[in-house]
């Protein structure tokens, strides 16, 4: 029982990375009907920007000689990284996606992939092959409740992810911009005629998605403190799987499927040898999609696709 609970906490943590990244895929999809294949590498860049921001902040506070509590530094780091990474998201939209809005959908996927490769290689070229380790901004405290061990970081990671998801939900449901996004996802060809500019909404969507990915990157850096230019590749593709599994363009579905993927992966590793993890996880996904071809919350294709 303790073992299951222990893994439940691990799965929540692992799933929250997937969910946060999958949200970015899903949001962009709901607006443009395109997948942002740079997203995994935006996640990576977010983690690196967070690393840079944390290092600079630590250096500044140390050189000035004031002691700032760790949680404040963490919040600052997350905010800085989210802001800068959302700028990157806007650039990606402008360079890679806006010129290809009417092109076949696969072409935009290719530009996305290629911008991702440029980000990876650029990172490698600028920072070299050194592995950086994410500074530990807050002390790790381990709790033990009835034989289940968990750290304050795990709680923090799950808490911050859930908080960001709720924030996104509130933004989409309650604000005027959110309303514009929902309208745009309903019909991106007619809504621009109503005075909502697609050239405003699309960058905004990319920015929000990238900000979430950046937050995921920092949380990931807290849990697994070794940064690597290719850390976003596999995580990105797997989150893409989660985004589709949730139903294309469904925000709630993406979050749920992200957690589900985390649970599948952690629990298969718990029951079976860990080398079988991918095999079993993807077989389950293949079966789900075979019997439920449009994901959890997706709608079947009714309109003519643009390819």
């Amino acid at each position: 029982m303790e073992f299951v609970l222990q893994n439940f906490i691990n799965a929540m943590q692992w799933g929250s990375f997937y969910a946060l990244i999958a949200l970015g895929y899903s949001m962009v999809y709901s607006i443009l009907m395109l997948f942002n294949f740079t997203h995994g590498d935006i996640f990576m860049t977010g983690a690196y920007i967070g690393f840079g921001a944390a290092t600079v902040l630590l250096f500044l506070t140390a050189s000035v000689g004031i002691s700032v509590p760790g949680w404040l530094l963490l919040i600052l780091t997350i905010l800085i990284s989210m802001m800068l990474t959302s700028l990157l998201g806007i650039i990606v939209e402008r360079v890679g996606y806006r010129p290809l809005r009417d092109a076949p959908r696969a072409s935009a996927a290719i530009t996305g992939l290629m911008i991702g490769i440029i980000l990876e290689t650029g990172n490698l070229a600028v920072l070299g092959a050194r592995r950086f380790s994410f500074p530990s901004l807050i002390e790790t405290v381990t709790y033990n409740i009835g034989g289940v061990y968990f750290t304050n970081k795990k709680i923090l990671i799950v808490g911050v992810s859930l908080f960001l998801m709720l924030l996104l939900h509130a933004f989409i449901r309650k604000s005027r911009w959110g309303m514009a996004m929902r309208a745009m996802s309903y019909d991106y060809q007619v809504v621009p005629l109503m005075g909502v500019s697609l050239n405003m909404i699309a960058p905004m969507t990319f920015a929000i998605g990238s900000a979430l990915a950046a937050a995921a990157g920092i949380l990931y850096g807290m849990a697994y403190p070794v940064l690597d230019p290719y850390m976003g590749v596999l995580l990105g593709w797997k989150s893409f799987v989660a985004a589709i599994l949730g139903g294309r363009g469904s925000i709630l579905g993406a979050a749920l499927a992200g957690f589900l993927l985390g649970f599948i992966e952690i629990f298969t590793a718990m029951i079976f040898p860990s080398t079988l993890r991918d095999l079993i996880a993807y077989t389950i996904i293949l079966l789900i999609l075979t019997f439920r071809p449009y994901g959890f919350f997706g709608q079947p294709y009714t309109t003519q696709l643009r390819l």
Partner: protein
Amino acid sequence: MTERLKEIYGSVPVIGWLIGMLVAVVTESAFGAGLAYALYLPKVPALLGLTVVLKQPSMFPAAILYVFLIYALPIFFAAGLTAPWANRMAAAMEALPLWLSAILHLGVLYLVLHLWTDMSDYRLQISKLTMIAVMLTLSINVINGYMGEFSCSHPGFMALGAYASSTFSLVLFRQDRLFGAPILPEFLGPYMFPLGLLLGGVAASLGALVVAIPSFRTRGDYLAIISLAFMFIVKSVFENLEVLGGPRGMGGQPHWATLPAVFIGMAVCIVVINNFVNSTMGKALNAVRDNETAAEAMTVNTRRTKMTAFMFGAFWAGVAGGLYAHELRYVNPSSFGIQSLAEILAMVYFGGLNSVVGSVVGALSIQMLSEALRPLELFKWIIIPLLLILVMIFRPTGLIAFRELNVKRTLGPRVRKSGG
């Protein structure tokens, strides 16, 4: 002046260019080494001098001169000079059956390639890998271009083919740490190699059923995920199969992927795929891509079409995988991952969808570029993606997309006798 040049070179048929290339490679094998020495080049430039130039920019004039003297001058000289004669030859070959004429052209091309790759082992390996890449690109074009699905499973198909044919040759013909003593004498091996490749292809097309059957009910992004999941599953299966070496992979395949073997493989692949996409089934593929419901109404059996296309594309990916395994003589599961997927996708979308010529051009240019830019190390992976982004922005379907290859007209003479 330009008018005159246009007149001369516009009338050179394919066979004329091939003769020009033949003259160039003969020139190179005769004078290449001496000229390189005279121009203070470290050795005969392997890939048209690009690598040398990027390594030592001071060699630029020498490399240009070399390429001009050895390649450009003989090719244009010979092609221009022999144009009337080549046209007569092309006309004579046009009278022959098409397959014979195609084989003659391919024979000359092989001769060129053979002489060119004879100069260095590096060229030989690059050429073989490029031809394998051509096969891969063509086979993914059947699914992604002609049928219009975004399939990500090609590395998986390739892995199935590579492992199946490697197992075939290791079990039957080689003393090996995984399978022990050979069953058949080794001298039979090269003759049985096509059978091994066939086996690889069949294994891959059976694997393709896993992707094809869900495709009856779903399209587009969901199919992309199914194919992606398939790729992860195949990779994971091979990582867990200790019988086949597990994550350490499988090595020591006999060196059967010689230049003629790979060349024949590629030639057969191009011919078969070109015929396939021009057949009724190929047109049905296009119909399914453009509008599935309408295609169904026009008596296209969409299920059978999709299944055939997937299995057919996967078959050639499997054959290419088998050749790849016997060329590198080592395979492990991690060579069939996301990285290889990105490369294959780059080649097919660069060259152009729905076009045999486009696939050949795409595979050729991406492979050559990635070899030529090797001295730039990391920056290679900035330049190639940038190039691809530009191609996508200005020609969203690739360089040479949606063009049919009419072999008869391509190989025919450029100047017809009046009244002829």
